[in-house]
């Protein structure tokens, strides 16, 4: 093909798009390759080229020549540092196909960005420097590509000009690569000897490699069959939005992510187990008889069944999994380390914000060797295999079977940052049917006691005065004939939580158990007074979520650290300062103060009696207790 042919853009009616990722080590010529593909396929306009030439003088690293890297490294911060921070998406079109290329960084520390680019790619162009051969980074990127489900790989053996276009070099490195990659599960591995700088075998076949019989890179990218990838998958239709323009129309809007569906087909909603049939497939351009993978449509059913956003519509013969526990690969994407036990938000399909926890780390993966390494947590850019438990059952497939219904992202519940990405391997336990229904509820039990059940949660530094105030509150409530229970961290650690230490993940588990016990007591109708340092906001919120609205009263006992150290009732600060206790909150571990507690108590120059009254007043205002002396009733 010549470059003139590229200029003839016309609709053929069948042009599809190939999304591919370029990866490989730093300085292996990725940007040059993309620059050349864009340039030679007319993806760069003259004025952009002029700007590029100006920028090359200012920021370039290629002397007088145009630095194609600057075409893709568009952000100022990237130019300042001469690195690629983020994925850039570029487009180019040839008469046969349109392309979206995700240019991803080569540095190891940007593994998460490489994974981001790979998540939507169907093919990876892995660049290898012919003068260097297969490197650690080649293996790392190949491994991640395989994990993310890319099944087609093209090895672009670059810088062939530096090795005199020798066939032996090409054959040796390709053999090396194939040997390494043979157990990664790729469907196809192709190899092309190229020189991105000189333009060999990229768009035009090179005279320098007469020994090479295969297609040049662009020919290969234009002709590889990627459509078959989604063919044959089961029908999946995650419901995005319920379309109800009037009382007579109820349609389920979404995109068919795999398989196909026709009017009259029987369907099932696996989460509820309800069945129906497809009545219409509605689109703005008219009704369809059949919808296939990739179609954004609105489906109506013959029966009025309860379906909402997050439900998945499937066929009864090929159901997805429904479970509240599963095993998955997780790529950690945040500076803050992943903490097993902490409550995170999970987004799976259109199930926007399932709340759940990573309950256990099985192992971390060394992506340069594929080896499984023992680990308890994940840091930025690390990949691990974990068990995950969600509060409510979710509908999914194994990622290997379906990339769209087997993937998820992990969201920090405080900051809403996307902190992780995952690929589900298998369910750990089928979702149990609904909890055992209890004939007597919290309401009835509390009514018998004439009180509104709740958790009164004291949080604050060690020595702040939590337990002292909590005790007074307890005594006063008892004196008023209210039914209470006091849970104190120290007491729980003698029994229920005897196995837990003071690491971050143990502290989280400590609060989780205390929260669950408190919740059971609320269910029994009690006023549960809890006194825990509970340093992390996420865990306090987790307990808050366990009970109903208004049933969690957060009491922040706010005492300056200096005062706590002065009081030091248990002598703990002294020990922490001498290094005898590690991870002591306020000394070498952080305390996250509540931002909007129901009650904020400052203890300096205050009597516990008065502070306890503040708490009681608040309970009365909220209708939890009636501030009359019940002993007289």
């Amino acid at each position: 093909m010549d470059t003139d042919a590229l200029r003839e853009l016309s609709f053929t009616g069948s042009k599809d798009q190939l999304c591919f990722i370029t990866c490989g080590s730093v300085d292996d010529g990725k940007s040059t390759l993309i620059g050349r593909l864009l340039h030679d396929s007319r993806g760069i306009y003259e004025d952009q080229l002029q700007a590029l030439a100006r920028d090359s003088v200012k920021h370039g690293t290629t002397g007088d020549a145009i630095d194609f890297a600057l075409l893709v490294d568009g952000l100022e911060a990237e130019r300042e540092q001469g690195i690629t921070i983020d994925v850039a998406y570029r487009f180019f079109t040839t008469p046969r196909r349109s392309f979206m290329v995700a240019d991803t960084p080569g540095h190891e520390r940007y593994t998460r960005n490489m994974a981001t680019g790979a998540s939507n790619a169907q093919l990876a162009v892995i660049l290898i420097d012919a003068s260097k051969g297969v490197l650690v980074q080649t293996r790392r990127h190949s491994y991640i590509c395989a994990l993310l489900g890319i099944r087609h790989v093209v090895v672009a053996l670059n810088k062939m000009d530096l090795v005199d276009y020798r066939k032996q070099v090409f054959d040796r490195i390709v053999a090396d690569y194939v040997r390494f990659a043979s157990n990664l599960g790729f469907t196809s591995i192709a190899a092309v000897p190229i020189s991105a700088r000189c333009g060999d075998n990229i768009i035009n076949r090179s005279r320098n490699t007469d020994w090479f019989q295969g297609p040049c890179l662009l020919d290969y990218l234009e002709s590889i069959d990627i459509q078959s990838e989604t063919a044959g998958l089961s029908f999946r239709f995650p419901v995005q939005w319920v379309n109800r323009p009037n009382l007579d129309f109820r349609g389920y809007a979404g995109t068919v992510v795999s398989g196909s569906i026709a009017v009259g087909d029987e369907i099932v909603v696996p989460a509820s187990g309800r069945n129906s049939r497809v009545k219409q497939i509605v689109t703005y351009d008219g009704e369809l008889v059949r919808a296939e993978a990739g179609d954004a449509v609105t489906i109506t059913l013959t029966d009025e069944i309860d379906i909402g956003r997050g439900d998945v519509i499937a066929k009864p013969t090929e159901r997805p999994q429904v479970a509240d526990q599963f095993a998955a690969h997780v790529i950690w994407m945040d500076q803050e380390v992943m903490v097993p036990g902490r409550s995170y938000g999970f987004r799976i399909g259109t199930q926007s914000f399932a709340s759940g926890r990573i309950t256990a780390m099985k192992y971390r993966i060394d992506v340069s060797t594929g080896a499984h390494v023992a680990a308890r947590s994940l840091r930025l850019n690390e990949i691990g295999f974990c068990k995950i438990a969600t509060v409510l059952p979710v509908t999914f497939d194994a990622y290997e079977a379906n990339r769209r219904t087997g993937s998820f992202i992990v969201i920090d519940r405080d900051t809403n940052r996307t902190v992780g990405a995952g690929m589900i391997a298998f369910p750990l336990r089928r979702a149990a049917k609904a909890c055992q229904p209890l004939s007597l509820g919290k309401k009835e039990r509390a009514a018998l006691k004439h009180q509104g059940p709740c958790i009164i949660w004291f949080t604050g530094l060690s020595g702040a005065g939590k337990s002292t105030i909590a005790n007074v509150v307890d005594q006063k409530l008892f004196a008023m004939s209210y039914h209470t229970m006091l849970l104190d961290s120290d007491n729980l650690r003698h029994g229920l939580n005897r196995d837990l230490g003071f690491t971050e993940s143990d502290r989280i588990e400590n609060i989780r158990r205390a929260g669950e016990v408190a919740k059971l007591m609320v269910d029994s109708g009690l006023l549960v007074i809890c006194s825990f340092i509970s340093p992390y906001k996420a865990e306090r919120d987790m307990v808050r979520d366990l009970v109903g609205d208004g049933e969690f009263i957060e009491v922040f006992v706010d005492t300056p650290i200096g005062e706590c150290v002065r009081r030091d009732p248990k002598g703990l600060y002294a020990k922490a300062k001498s290094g005898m206790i590690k991870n002591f909150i306020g000394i070498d571990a952080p305390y996250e103060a509540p931002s909007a507690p129901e009650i904020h108590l400052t203890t300096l120059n205050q009597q516990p009696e008065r502070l306890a009254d503040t708490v009681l007043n608040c309970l009365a205002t909220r209708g939890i207790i009636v501030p009359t002396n019940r002993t007289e009733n």
Partner: protein
Amino acid sequence: MNAQEITKPQTRTLPRHLRRLEAESIEIMREVVADFRKPVMLYSSGKDSSVMLHLAQKAFYPAKVPFPLLHVDTTWKFREMISFRDETAQRLGIDLIVHVNPDGIERGINPIESGSTLHTQIMKTDALKRALDVHGFDAAFGGARRDEEKSRAKERIFSFRSHGHVWDPRNQRPELWNLFNTRSLKGETMRVFAISNWTELDVWEYVMLENIPVVPLYFAKMRWVVHRNGALIMVDDERLPLSPNETPELKMMRFRTLGCYPLSGAIESDAATIKDIVAEMQVATRSERQGRLIDTDESASMEKKKREGYF
């Protein structure tokens, strides 16, 4: 509504890549409507806006488009854009909010004496932020595309903005698969670029195949223009001051991109139909935004504007 009423003749034979882009944009729009409290669509009446609006009609059909349109009017838009804008909103029965920055008007900000940078800052960026705040919109669709400019090539589809609508390229959320993190705290907002992955050519092919009405300024016609700073500036009204050496001349020309008229350069062209435009684009050697004076007023200009809240 019954089955007969929603049956329409099936006329479209979109090429596969446009079908895929269309479906992707529809999916994005539905996510926003499902997950946000109060979305809005930024509407400039340009070709990208027209395509977005068409896609929105498809996404929510048979329901009406469930959000209003917001036009940040700098008062220096082409007259034809304004009339097209009003006709479109009326024709489709969609609420249109027009916001003009009153402070800017009071201060007499304009693209000629104030300069393009200040004008854009006050009348577009500040005005947009203010309009979003006043109405409490938590998500705003924008028609920006990744092929337009290099800082936009790195832009997310769901572009997170912290308090004050600030864009920090280092603080954007990774986007994997089609799983968008739509969560935000009070005061934080999202710009959503539903046609991120479309190219200029995709837009025109789609306009052609779907018969989408666009502003006539995109089609070649004899228009009065002056040469200024290497660009062809149309004399759209009497407000454009002419320097002594400038004499308006009639030229066959059209626009590839539309903004404030004194800041949008035209191109000489004979392309009078969409077919002509598509054909012209296939041999074009200059980029779409080369006529946009605001892109080049300083290096990394778009990135800077975006950091400050420009869409």
